């Protein structure tokens, strides 16, 4: 087993230091207190700043604990902010795919729709932002479950069936979720509504944390190819859009 990671130990020491006393320290003071080279302390502080764990005073340049630390337990990205950051890419995805786009975040074992773009055919459609969707029967929900072990474990007993094709056995769902993690996207074919299908991919924030899912839904004959699987061009479109949002949110590797 590898030993402790030194930079993480040092980061923890910096946070402990800032949590004491006046709570406002300059780089040199921090480096001095911990016996670190100034450059090393600075590098760690920049990284902590990037994730919101420390903040820097504009005038004095001193560091203090960041607001994000106080809200570690609550949602890390405000859902309204997620919508603002994703709106351009959601529009482009709807325009390219010709299908309705939704963005979902987890809420009490369900999917909260935080953004909805109409299918671009100018027919009458109703905005369903704020609606709750079942996680096990939607592509958005499968993505959210796949990357949140806690939420997936909370699903036990018989899952609610919506159509003949809804996955109702938790074990079977777990297998599907493993597949989602392997592929990096999820599909749903007539599992929620007969005649409809969907594709979704994860939206990641800093460090790769999944903060939401973005996907399209539409008539099964438009979403799926002859083999009954989602068309590869649509899958690519969804994944590219979700990746573009992730990049804007600071998930550099995805």
């Amino acid at each position, binding site marked *: 087993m590898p030993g402790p990671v030194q930079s993480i130990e040092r980061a923890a020491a910096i946070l402990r230091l800032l949590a004491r006393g006046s709570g406002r320290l300059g780089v040199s003071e921090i480096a001095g207190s911990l016996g670190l080279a100034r450059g090393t302390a600075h590098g760690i502080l920049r990284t902590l700043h990037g994730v919101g764990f420390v903040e820097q005073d504009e005038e004095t340049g001193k560091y203090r604990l960041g607001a994000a630390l106080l809200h570690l337990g609550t949602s890390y990205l405000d859902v*309204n*902010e997620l919508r603002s950051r994703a709106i*351009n890419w959601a*529009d*482009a995805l709807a325009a390219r795919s010709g299908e309705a786009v939704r963005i979902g975040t987890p809420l009490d074992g369900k999917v909260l729709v935080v953004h909805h773009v*109409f299918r671009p055919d100018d027919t009458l459609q109703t905005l369903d932002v704020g609606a709750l969707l079942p996680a096990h029967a939607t592509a958005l929900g499968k993505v959210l479950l796949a990357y949140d072990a806690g939420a997936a474990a909370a699903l036990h007993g018989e899952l609610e069936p919506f159509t003949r094709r809804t996955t109702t056995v938790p074990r079977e769902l777990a297998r599907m979720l493993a597949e989602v993690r392997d592929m990096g996207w999820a599909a749903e074919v007539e599992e929620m509504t007969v005649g409809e299908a969907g594709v979704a991919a994860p939206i990641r924030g800093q460090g790769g944390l999944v903060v939401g899912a973005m996907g399209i839904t539409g008539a099964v004959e438009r979403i799926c190819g002859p083999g009954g699987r989602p068309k590869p061009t649509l899958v690519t479109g969804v994944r590219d859009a979700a990746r573009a949002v992730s990049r804007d949110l600071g998930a550099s590797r995805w």
Partner: protein
Amino acid sequence: MVERYVMAVDQGTTSTRCILFDHGGRLVSVTQREHKQHFPRPGWVEHDAMEIWRNLERIAPEAVAQAGATPDQVAALGIANQRETTVLWDRHTGRPIGHAIVWQDTRTDRLVDELAAHPLADLVRERCGLPLATYFSAPRIRWMLDNRPGLRERAERGDVLFGTMESWLIWNLTGGPEGGLHVTDVTNASRTLLMNLTTLDWDDELLAFFGVPRAMLPRIRPSTETYGPARRVLPGVRIAAALGDQQAALFGQTCFAPGEAKCTYGTGAFLLLNTGNEPVRSAHGLLTTVGYQIGSEPAVYALEGSIAITGALVQWFRDGLGIIGSAPEIETLARTVDDNGGCYIVPAFSGLFTPYWRSEARGIIVGLTSYITKGHLARAVLEATGWQTREVVDAMNADSGLALKALKVDGGMTADNLLMQFISDVLNVPVIRPMAAETVSLGAAYAAGLAVGYWPDLEGLRRNWHRAAQWLPAMDPARREVEYDNWRRAVERTFDWIKPES
């Protein structure tokens, strides 16, 4: 075949954006950089034009790279810009003369009062369709010339140039001190108080009235026309359009027929109604302005309702008060309560624009009691945008004699569902967002793409327009009336705050 794109540059009040669009008008890549807002004194707002240019130098190549493209795949570049913001610079060094003075800046209020007392003051509205107000460029040029020794002489010799942001950027892109083109487009020129709305040229009497030397002014060109190739940043790319950001949004919403209108919600909000080839005069405080001019075709005019502060109030809540960490959190906070608790915020930070045109008004928060929480304040922040829209729509309806049937919206604030629902509620009409939140950029791209034949005609562009979201009115009419009445009483309390110099 190699894919080709059109690039839009949206030089806004708070940031500069570069966006590549494909043939379907769909966004392919986007890069953005904020610039610093300087508030050196109450009522003063400045930008560093050099910082803005450097931002563009950086983000334009990034946008091309993000799309996995090369500059030769960029068929044309169109610019949309914050309007009325005034830059003066030295033709020989390319250095700006001090900071740019931003459209929200009210330092010229005394000067405007003095000018308004002049016997020829009526000439202004007659010739250029705008009220004499601090909002527009001419008094700022005059202020700069008056406040810097020797500047007037240099301007008269043509050594110092004036421009709004598009002029500054085009001049730099086309070579700067080495032969940069000094041009502006009709829509931007129509916001200076110096352009004759009928001839679409600088008006000698207006120049004399404001004391602005002609030698410092750019040439006025149509909104879509190949001005020339870029020689810096993206060498060889044709610069083929420029429009004020609000006019660009009108274009991006494909409001090409008389009677079509849109409202863009950014730092401020601006409702523009296409009035065709006739400039229509308003009796209710709307501006008459140029909507766009395609090549050598006759200009298309617009009536405009201008609201100075909408998103900027949210920004102030974030930066000035620190109550929220990001603009969208205003919605989260507002949803923690059911109503405004009796509290109203009138953000007359730069005076009030349409329909009041009161530069001496200043912002207020009224109805404060111990009951009020930050949630109520957040509601009042969003509602201020709703009620200001209502006042502008009322003015538009009164002028046109027709009632608006639906409102097409765009801009960053349209991501706010609570706000969009509130606007629909107070207007009592559907609010519709098209499938291009970045409509300003799309309009600039459309205009540039048309100029170079990337898109054949306006009809083709119309087919790209699709509804992305719609909000329907759901407010009880009695409540709407009570709330509107409260709002108007709040507005009255902002009047006459700044006292005339005795």
